């Protein structure tokens, strides 16, 4: 049964690929959504079956066929459903379905073949993503990993005639590939070290061992895998592709670049939690990179004017949170945040999409404002999403974020906690800057007609999201409120159900029980600390919202004055830290110039081919000298024959 979960979207993809251009739009969009709904249904059934099993040993396994076998290198297509992947498939199929439905309305202006192409890509993405989270070994995971990268490439560049979109797609793919080099090497090393690539067997092999004190093979595997994760999950130094990826259609940003694909790196670490636990040095690196990414990306989110780019930097920042959690060993907290984030970030992107849809393509915050009255559904749902991501008590983000911050502090990293808390403040500021600029205040309309003639026209009669877009928004808004309660902290008398549910996925099969007991004891001791931290971060969130209200609602001039006051800092932030430019100067241009000037036009054509042609020239020149012996006179040839004969005979006679 498990195989049907990814197979149903694949079926949708095949139908839309081969018959899509002949189907009416409602059919192709409906089919794709239906495939997702069916996959969601199967997922629910399977997860229910999983929940019926005894805690601790919950898993469903299906081996489909042997994909690759060569000597002892055996790669079966095996799917394994355990608590971690159960959570993931529900997110992917559930939120995926909502986004499919939303897309049927959002993409309605596309002609039928393009529309079918869009949905076929979306289904294909779901197939690969489900394969990724259900995979039981590294190679099948890698198939999904690369597959979602491909779909991301295709969907970012969906409007391929726009050079910026095509560029962004290519950039995403290539930056991801940089990470993939690390990933592949990590997998190879894991195979050599463990003789298997099955996650469970690797965990079982590591279970009895103590964590590596020095940086050894296991740490190297973990580090290489983490490099892969930084690519896919947009962490420093490979985060640069995600903001550009906003060139794709907005539902794609919601599905791939917020809710699912970009969290694959976090999932990868969660999936290999035992491995990472055995590599404490690498865990520290993960935590530091996560924290730095969180604050670094948050900074740029503060000044971006493109509504989607603000959300993109916010995604990078939130992913940083998740890595921070993974890095301090709070795997369940990281995955919990992944889960809640999927709801509110998908909601925010879809809300932004509804705004863009209503404004006929306008994405610049400077030309929005006052949309609250015209787009009530969008406004209220967007507000809920913003409150959730800012960490306002009671909403989803609050529980997961505070869990991460508390675990960071409790694990003995007060500095990382401080960075996380600062990021939390920034999150509240940039999110509500966005809310206030887009929905509050006066309407600002773009005046340069050359730039967007259609847009200014459409501003006249705004309409709120149609039903196919509104319903997903409302459902996601509900999710953004409620999703947090599956991890209701024990401090408030909750059960923190999610943590206990996920725990077996993060421990080696043999040692699961002993660890659980120890952690429960450690958790009970510090409820008072947790409470203090929760209060601090709640205050930060509210302070951030208040500050945003001051800057962008009450006194709109202040932010401009701040920018004038610190021009260099402002330019630094607006230009996204010049990171793209630095990479270009440091890597792209030197490689291009090396390849073009040194390797091709010097080494290849001059040195190597020069040597080859040189041999030819030498032969030719020699011939040019020797040819003068050929006089063309028959008599001379006869004479030389005679002389030769005389010489030979003479040699034998007088020897």
């Amino acid at each position, binding site marked *: 049964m498990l195989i049907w979960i990814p197979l149903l979207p694949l079926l949708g993809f095949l139908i839309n690929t081969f018959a899509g251009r002949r189907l009416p739009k409602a059919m192709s969009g409906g089919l794709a959504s239906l495939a997702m709904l069916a996959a969601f249904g199967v997922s629910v059934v399977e997860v229910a079956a999983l929940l019926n099993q005894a805690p601790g040993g919950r898993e469903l396994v299906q081996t489909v066929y042997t994909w690759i076998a060569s000597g002892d290198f055996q790669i079966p297509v095996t799917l394994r459903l355990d608590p971690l992947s159960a959570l993931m498939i529900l997110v992917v199929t559930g939120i995926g379905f909502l986004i499919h439905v939303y897309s049927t309305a959002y993409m309605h202006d596309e002609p039928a073949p393009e529309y079918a192409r869009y949905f076929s890509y979306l289904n294909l993405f779901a197939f690969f993503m489900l394969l990724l989270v259900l995979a039981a070994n590294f190679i099948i995971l890698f198939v999904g990993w690369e597959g979602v990268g491909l779909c991301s490439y295709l969907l970012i560049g969906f409007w391929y005639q726009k050079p910026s979109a095509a560029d962004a797609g290519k950039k995403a793919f290539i930056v991801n590939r940089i990470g993939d080099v690390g990933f592949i090497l990590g997998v190879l090393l894991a195979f050599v070290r463990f003789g298997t690539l099955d996650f469970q067997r690797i965990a079982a092999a590591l279970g009895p061992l103590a964590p590596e004190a020095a940086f050894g093979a296991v740490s190297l595997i973990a580090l290489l895998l983490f490099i892969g994760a930084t690519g896919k999950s947009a962490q420093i130094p490979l985060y640069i592709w995600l903001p550009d990826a906003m060139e794709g259609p907005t539902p794609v940003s919601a599905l791939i670049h917020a809710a699912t694909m970009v969290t694959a790196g976090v999932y990868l670490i969660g999936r290999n939690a035992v491995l990472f636990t055995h590599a404490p040095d690498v865990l520290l690196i993960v935590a530091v990179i996560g924290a730095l990414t969180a604050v670094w990306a948050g900074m740029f989110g503060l000044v971006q004017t493109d509504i989607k780019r603000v959300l993109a930097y916010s995604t990078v920042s939130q992913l940083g949170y998740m890595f921070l959690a993974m890095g301090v060993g709070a795997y369940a907290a990281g995955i919990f945040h992944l889960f809640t984030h999927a709801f509110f970030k998908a909601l925010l992107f879809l809300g932004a999409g509804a705004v863009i849809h209503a404004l006929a393509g306008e994405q610049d915050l400077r030309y929005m404002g006052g949309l609250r009255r015209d787009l009530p559904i969008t406004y209220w749902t967007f507000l809920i999403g913003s409150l959730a991501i800012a960490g306002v008590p009671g909403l989803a983000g609050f529980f997961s974020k505070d869990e991460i911050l508390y675990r960071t502090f409790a694990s003995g990293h007060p500095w990382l906690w401080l960075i996380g808390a600062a990021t939390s403040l920034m999150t509240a500021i940039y999110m509500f800057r966005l809310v206030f600029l887009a929905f509050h205040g006066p309407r600002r309309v773009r005046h340069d007609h050359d730039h967007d003639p259609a847009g200014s026209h459409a501003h006249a009669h705004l309409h709120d999201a149609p039903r196919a877009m509104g319903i997903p928004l409302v459902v996601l808004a509900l999710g953004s409120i409620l999703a947090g309660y599956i991890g209701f902290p024990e401090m408030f008398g909750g059960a923190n159900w999610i943590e206990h549910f996920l725990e077996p996925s993060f421990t080696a099969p043999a040692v699961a029980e002993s660890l659980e007991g120890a952690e429960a004891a450690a958790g009970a001791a510090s409820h008072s600390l947790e409470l203090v931290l929760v209060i601090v971060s709640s205050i930060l969130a509210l302070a951030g919202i208040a500050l945003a209200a001051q800057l962008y609602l009450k006194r709109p001039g202040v932010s401009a004055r701040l920018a004038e006051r610190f021009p260099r800092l402002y330019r630094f932030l607006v230009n996204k830290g010049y990171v793209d430019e630095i990479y270009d100067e440091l890597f792209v241009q030197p490689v291009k110039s090396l390849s073009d000037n040194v390797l091709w036009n010097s080494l290849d054509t001059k040195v190597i081919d020069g040597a080859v042609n040189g041999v030819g020239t030498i032969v030719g020149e020699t011939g040019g000298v*020797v*040819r*003068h*012996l*050929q*006089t*063309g*006179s*028959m*008599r001379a040839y*006869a*004479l030389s024959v*005679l002389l030769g004969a005389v010489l030979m005979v003479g040699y034998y006679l007088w020897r």
Partner: protein
Amino acid sequence: MASLNHYLILSGVIFTIGVAGVFLRRNLITILLSIEVMLNAVNLSFIAFGRFQGSADGQIIVFFVITVAAAEAAVGLALVISLFRHVETLNPDAYRQLRG
């Protein structure tokens, strides 16, 4: 009774006449004839050797040489004729197109 040496000397003399003909005459047909003379000089020495060794091998080889000579004469003359049609002279010094 003539000894082997007599035959060989005669053969040498005829051969030298042939060589001289090849080098001194300025007519392609004469040159071809001179080559025939050289071949026949060699034939003579073959037969002489065969006779004095009491074996038939010499004569067999001569038959081969005569056959080849006949073929050579046929091809050679045909070439000479077509060359003559082309350049309208039989002087070998006129054919220098193959100079390197």
